[in-house]
């Protein structure tokens, strides 16, 4: 289709267009719990929403854990209970995604967690896996 329907999401915004407005939700200061940081992860890498987070089976010693903040510990506990995606951690811990990304970056850096990258789309999708997904969906 062509573009006569106007700019869709992702279309170039008009130079003067504001990217948010009053209905977009409250504008809030960055969360104190991230120390004002908004760049997640080592090197500022943004964890994908479906990147899977696993507790490291060889974590740093308990002294290091004792100095973690409550949100860090919440996340760590969730990861230890079950492998979860970044999105799930956010929903489960009831923290916004951006905050979770920053906290996970800390935990990753200090060796409490490991994060697996989602399979890049070019490697997706193995026909066998897709068959499994289709059968699984039908069996739900």
């Amino acid at each position, binding site marked *: *289709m062509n573009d006569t*329907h*106007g*700019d*869709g*999401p*992702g*279309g170039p*915004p008009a*130079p003067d267009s*504001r*990217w*948010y*407005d009053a209905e*977009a*939700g*409250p*504008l*809030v*200061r*960055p969360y104190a719990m991230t120390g*004002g940081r*908004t760049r997640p992860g*080592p090197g500022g890498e943004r964890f*994908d*929403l*479906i*990147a*899977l987070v696993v507790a490291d*089976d060889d974590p740093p010693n308990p002294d290091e854990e004792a100095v973690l903040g409550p949100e860090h510990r919440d996340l760590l506990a969730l990861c230890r209970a*079950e*492998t979860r*995606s970044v*999105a*799930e951690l*956010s*929903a489960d811990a009831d923290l*916004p*995604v*951006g*905050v979770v990304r920053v906290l996970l970056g800390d935990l*990753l*850096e200090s*060796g409490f967690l*490991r*994060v*697996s990258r*989602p*399979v*890049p*789309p070019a490697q997706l999708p193995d*026909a066998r*896996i*897709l068959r*499994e*997904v*289709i059968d*699984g*969906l039908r069996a*739900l």
Partner: protein
Amino acid sequence: MAYEPSDRTGADDGADALALKILVAGGFGVGKTTLVGSVSEIRPLRTEETLSRAGELVDDTGGVDRKTTTTVAMDFGRITIRAGLSLYLFGTPGQDRFWFLWDELSQGALGAVVLADTRRLEDCFPAVDYFEHRKIPFVVAVNCFEGARSYREQEVSRALDLDQGTPVVLCDARDRDSGKEVLVRVVEYAGRMHTARHLDTVG
């Protein structure tokens, strides 16, 4: 490096687990939340964007500590196929002004559902455009509201000027089986698209 590739072999600790992502898009009030909720355990997901990130296109507002964020809620659901294989659904915010969220959401997505209401088909044009331009496999799911005249798939396909092969499926977003079928069609279509592209690169 602390990052582990997901195809890493060895320990059964979830690092080799696979997560797939399907987006649910469409106009305002078309049934996105209903669809995600009928096929999965739905939870709201709060995400916030910093002014600086989206604001790259406008003026730089200066120092880090002056940056503000805005909170956007989206639908999020998980379907566990088996241990180590999950499908994640993201209902994209319907409002166009959140276009910047789509870019992140669509990265690495297996495919997408564009929900349409035949009484206001034009509402899904932006989503159709978006996925077509980015070559993300999508199906158009026509949510059959009562009182709406029923259309055949080909009529919808023609009205939306869809690329040949883009599936159109009639559904009831409130119905679990119907919602499941929509997802099945996405996965099937994504598989076909992928195979075709793969053959293109190889041949």
